[in-house]
Every structure is written in C-alpha cells, then in structure tokens.
C-alpha cells in the first residue's frame, strides 16, 4: 500500500512535468501544425540557460528562471523568422524536415559548445525531502509542479480567453481569412512559435536542475511531448495536461507492477490503445462531412 501511494505521488510529480512539456508543443504542433523537432532542443536550451546563469554567472535561481524563459522565447522567434517564414505555405512535411535539420545542427552545436559531459545546477531547495507518512517527495519537485501548474493555467487563459489566443487559433485554421479579419498573421506565426518555444525552455529550465543537463536530454522529452499532445487531442490544452498525467500513470504503474524494462512500453501501449479507441485523441474536435 505505501509503495502504491509512493507511486501515485511520483505520478503526480512526473505528470506535472509531462503536462508542461506537452502544452508548449500543443501550441506549435497542435495549433500551428508544425511538426516541431526543435522542441527538444529548446528544452535543452532552457536547461543550459539555467546552467549558465546559475552556475557560471552566479545569479539567483529564481531570477534565472525568467531569463531562461525569455531566452527561449527569443530563440523561438529567431527560428520562426529564419527557418519557417521563408517556407510559409510549403507542406507540413517540408517544414518538418527543416525542423529536423535544425534539430540535428543545434544539438550538435550544443555538444560543441558545452561538450557531452552532463552538467547540473544547484538549487536553493533543501536536500532532505518532504516526508508525509510512507511517502516522500523532494521540495524541488514540488516547486516544479507548482510552477508547471502556473504556466499551464496561464497558457490556457492565453489561448482560450484572450483576443490574441483567438487570433492564433483563427490564423492556423485559415490564415487568409484571418488576415481578412485584420490579424497580422506574420506576427501571430512568430509569436506563437516563440511562446511555444519559451514554454519548452521553461520546462527545460525547471527540469534541468531536477535531472542532469546534457546535449541529448531533449530527445526523450520531445518524444514524450509528442505522445502527450496526441494523446490529448491536437491543439487541446486541457487534453495535453490530462494526457501528461495518463502517460505518467502508465509509466509509474508499468514500472512498479509489470516490469521496469517495459516501463516505456506501457506508455506507448496506452497511446496505441487510446488511439484505437478514440482515433483523434481523448478530446477530439467535432468534425462533419458534406
């Protein structure tokens, strides 16, 4: 029983980080329809930003977080302006491949700059965990969970409650018509990609200190993010959050009660099962024919 409780708590903490990974990608993949292979790199970038700002420049941990987020935002904007804008209107596979190219190049760039040896970031949180009965959890992870929740809510409100969010959705549903409504679609493209990127960087900045930081750290994160976004249904923020927790639950229980070798397999099997039952994710958009 106490083991089960511990698994549940782990699931909550892990699910929060998965959800955070998912929402940034929902913006870019779900709403913009760009198969964004640079998402993992931006996650890595956010983590290295923390490393630089905290370990090398000696700044305060809490100040470093916004710095990493802003840097991610800027890098995202640059990627959109230089790589995606010239290919506007090309099909999704072409932009996907450009993103693959950028992923390969940027990841190797990180290896070149920082080397392959993992880095870590010191945090102001106590090392001793919070212990409640049979369950313990680290303070740092609780902080990450809280920060993730905050970012998720903010993103949700941005997309669903603001005019900018409305314009974003409109632009990617029909970009000509959106421009007829007076939307500056160029600006929307850049800012959506930048916001999605800054969320990825935020995830990296928060999780980098939890784990360790190395050039390929984003790969696994990106695969999980893609899975989460799809699990929840494209472009659906609530879906991405729930998808994140479902994946975390599948992995925890898979590792805990089936076999740790098949831990990730459990996650993927859940995804296959969900998609067979609901081919457009948990929160499908309503569609019609004719």
């Amino acid at each position: 029983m106490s083991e089960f409780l511990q698994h549940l708590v782990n699931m909550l903490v892990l699910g929060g980080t998965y959800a955070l990974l998912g929402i940034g990608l929902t913006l870019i993949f779900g709403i913009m329809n760009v198969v964004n292979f640079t998402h993992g790199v931006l996650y890595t970038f956010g983590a290295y930003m923390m490393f630089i700002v905290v370990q090398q420049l000696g700044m305060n941990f809490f100040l470093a977080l916004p710095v990493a987020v802003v840097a991610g935002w800027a890098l995202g904007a640059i990627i959109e302006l230089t790589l995606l804008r010239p290919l506007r209107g090309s099909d999704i596979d072409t932009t996907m491949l450009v993103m693959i190219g950028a992923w390969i190049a940027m990841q190797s760039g990180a290896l070149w700059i920082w080397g392959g040896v993992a880095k870590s970031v010191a945090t102001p949180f106590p090392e001793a965990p919070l212990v409640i009965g049979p369950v313990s959890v680290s303070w740092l992870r609780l902080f990450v969970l809280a920060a993730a929740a905050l970012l998720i809510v903010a993103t949700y409100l941005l997309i669903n409650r603001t005019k900018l969010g409305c314009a974003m959705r409109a632009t990617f549903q029909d970009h000509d018509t959106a421009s007829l409504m007076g939307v500056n679609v160029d600006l929307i493209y850049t800012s959506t990609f930048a916001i999605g990127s800054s969320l990825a960087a935020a995830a990296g900045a928060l999780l980098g200190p939890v784990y360790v930081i190395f050039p390929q750290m984003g790969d696994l994160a990106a695969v999980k993010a893609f899975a989460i976004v799809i699990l929840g249904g494209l472009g659906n923020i609530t879906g991405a959050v729930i998808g994140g927790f479902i994946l975390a639950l599948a992995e925890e229980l898979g590792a805990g009660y089936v076999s740790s070798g098949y831990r990730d397999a459990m996650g993927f099997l859940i995804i296959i099962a969900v998609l067979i039952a609901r081919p457009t994710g948990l929160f499908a958009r309503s569609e019609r024919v004719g």
Partner: protein
Amino acid sequence: MTTAVPALKVEHVAIHFGGLVALSDLNFTVDEGEIVSLIGPNGAGKTTAFNIVTGFLAPTHGSVSYRGTPLDGLKPHQIADIGLVRTFQRTSVFPNDTIYDNLLIGLHRQSRVHLPEALLGLPRARLTERKVRERAHELAEWVGLGRRIHDLAGSLSYGEQRLVGVALALAAGPSMLLLDEPVSGMNASETHTFVELIRNIRSRGVTILLVEHDMPMVMSVSDRIVVLNYGRIIAEGPPDTIRNDPAVIEAYLGKAAVHA
C-alpha cells in the same frame, strides 16, 4: 417514365448530435429513374440525410435500403460500390491533381484489376487502363473543362471546381446520384445547361436525388419534391403542389419565391 419501383427507401431515420436533433423520423422513397428533390431551410437536415444514406453517418434510429439491400453498417465505399454516389455541398476535389487525374481517381471502380495483373503489367490491366483514360477525357469534355484538363483542380475557380465534383461522381458510374446543391455558384445560364445535363443523366437510367436551393431549377427538373424543416418532413408532392403549400412558403420559400 417512372416505373414506380422504389429504389431508395428511407425509413424512420433519426439522428442527433449531442442534444441537437438533426433528423427525426424521416421517411421517404425515391423510385427507380425518378428525380426527387429534397428541399428545406438551412440546417433542416438535408445534407445530414445524404450523409446517412451514403454511410458517412450512422443514424440513431431507422434504416435505409437501396434496391432491397439494407445499407445499415455498410461503409461509404461499399455503398458507392452498390451504385449510390453523391456529390458534396462544399467544393470537393483532389486539389493537387490535374482534372484528368481527378477523373482517373474517380474512375476507380471501372479501373479495378487484380494486384498481380497491375504489378506485372498484364494485357487486361493495360486494356482497362486505356479505356479509363478515354473515359476521363470524355467526362472532362462533358462538363466543359476539356481545355483545362491538365490544370490542377485546386487552381480552378469555385464554380469550375463544382463541375469537377459532378464529373467525379459520374466517373464512379452511379445507378443513383445524390447531388448536394450542384448549381450553387452557377449563374442562370450555367444552371440551364446543367439541368440539361441532369436530364441527360436520368435518361440513361440513373435515379437522382437532388438537394438545391435554386427554386426555378428544382421546380423545372423534379418529378417529386420532399420538404424538410427542423429534421421533419413538412410536405411532399409534385412541384406544383409544393410551390403553393402555405407551410412551405412560410418556412422556406418566402414571399418572393412564389413567383418563381
């Protein structure tokens, strides 16, 4: 002209989307060789009825049969195989292919050969290929797009794409054709030509179910009209009766249309 053998039978069909009842207890038949129009206000459920007949939606209640075969549970392509082919209210083409290739895709049912024949390029496969290619040219000429046959369908104007849509449906070789607002986006003269086209198709023995808001056209071409409102039939009969039905005028035609 009509042989009074029911081809399509729609019995007690109902469907709802969430709380919204789109069709309730719909009953009508279309006889072999007949032209029947389904009209009614926007959102009355006409396209939804098409979707149910052609297998794109499963009704909550009721059943549909064609020439005695129940269509329940059949997939859209199986229904097309039986000979029921539809067009779409929205323009619907294969945008990145030429008109010619569009029609070749449409001719799928006529071009079927076995996989090994196709892979080995056997004579029967070649002969079939030649035949469908000829047919594609014929069809393009027929809808008046012969000159543009090598243009991408996606680059055509709205009205031209609608013509391609009809040609595609014909390519599938239907015994019954369901047309969803075929002349929307055409002017009166083009509509006129199109009416001739429909009569022509019918004279080859194809049964037609038509959804259209162009009243002059509907009145001139239909043998019978079924009127829907809020998912129910409110009137049914020959054009002259419908034209003067007060309920239809109230719900649908409006005052001006009485003169049409």
